[in-house]
């Protein structure tokens, strides 16, 4: 499979980085490219010029965004690795959606101005994330990252697209053993891909 992995964490020695490395190792037999948002110095705020082209011919105006968009358009699967902050995606990753998943990449408009999904080629979407909160609090709260990726984004892919969700809860008090087990679970999941 051609797989695009999107990662957002400011620190090079974070647990999120360890999760990314585990995912990449497990997927080594596939054709994988990585959008490492902090390392690539990706700027998350959709610009005024980009917004003016929301319905136009040039919604993408930045070479890095264009590269990311090419990766997405060629992908059979999308994998997102990130820490859950404020119950959702870090701004870097939300900005990746705002700026990369635009008209012509993730969706189009038909002649009645209705949205037409464009990510039918994406057969799998996976999220790998850490939560500060417990499983219960996450379920009762927003769980915005999961809703955004496994539901909002999935609509642009289609109902036959499989979603996989791997979360480590209570990250702040997780023991080394908890973390090791979670890394193991992530490795086993992606080795089956």
């Amino acid at each position, binding site marked *: 499979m051609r797989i695009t992995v999107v990662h957002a964490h*400011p*620190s090079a020695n974070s647990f999120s980085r360890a999760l990314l490395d585990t995912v990449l190792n497990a997927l080594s037999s596939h054709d994988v490219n990585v959008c490492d948002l*902090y390392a690539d110095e990706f*700027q*998350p*705020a*959709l*610009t*005024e010029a*980009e*917004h*003016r082209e929301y319905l136009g011919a040039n919604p993408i105006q930045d070479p890095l965004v264009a590269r990311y968009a090419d990766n997405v358009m060629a992908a059979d699967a999308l994998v997102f690795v990130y820490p859950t*902050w*404020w*119950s*959702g*995606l*870090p*701004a*870097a990753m*939300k*900005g990746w*959606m*705002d700026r990369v*998943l635009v008209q012509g990449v993730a969706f189009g*408009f038909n002649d*009645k*101005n*209705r*949205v037409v999904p464009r990510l039918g080629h994406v057969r799998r979407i996976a999220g790998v994330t850490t939560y500060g909160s417990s499983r219960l609090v996450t379920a*009762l*709260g*927003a*769980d*915005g*990252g999961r*809703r*955004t990726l496994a*539901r*909002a*984004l999935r*609509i642009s892919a289609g109902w036959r697209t499989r979603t996989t969700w791997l979360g480590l809860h209570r990250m*702040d*008090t997780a023991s080394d053993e908890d973390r090791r087990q979670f890394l193991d679970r992530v490795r086993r999941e992606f080795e089956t891909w």
Partner: protein
Amino acid sequence: MVNALVVSVHPRTDSLTAAARERALAALREGRHTVTLIDLYAEGFDPLLSEDEHRRHRDPPETKPQIADHVALVRACEMLVLVYPTWWGAQPAMLKGWFERVWVNGVAAEVHDDGRPPSPLLTNIKRIVVVTTHGSPKWINAIEGEAGKRFAKRSLRASVNRRCRVNWIAFYGVDRSTHERRARFLDRVSRRFARIA
């Protein structure tokens, strides 16, 4: 009379969001409230939590002068008004980043080491009003899970006053909307804020 903080997010000054913000500001001023505006795009706010801020996320906010102005405003307001376009079911990165960088430990909540849930610190905030627009119709947003709405109605509650009310003033279906529908939405914003006022 309340002290209202309006946080507005849109890259364009000719947007429906900007027009809605102007209606909200006008109605609040009409009601003689004290109104402060933070326009994140206009002031060039950087939404990226840096490596340094992440490493020091438990440090006291007083050690982070780069967020001091916004922290003071958040601590002083009784009403928080968020005006933004909903993209991909949630807040734009610019607004998400504002919460990540400004609503930190010691500002939004106090994290405890003994496993107790964090204590809210922004008990000054007794009302949150969200004004937002959605490109797609309401039923699509329902399937998408309304992450932005849940953030406002649930996640923020952990940091504000126990009796805080959350008002959701939303417009759905901008992509296929008529001029008349957009005008009616703006009138609705004015009416709602006049009633709050």
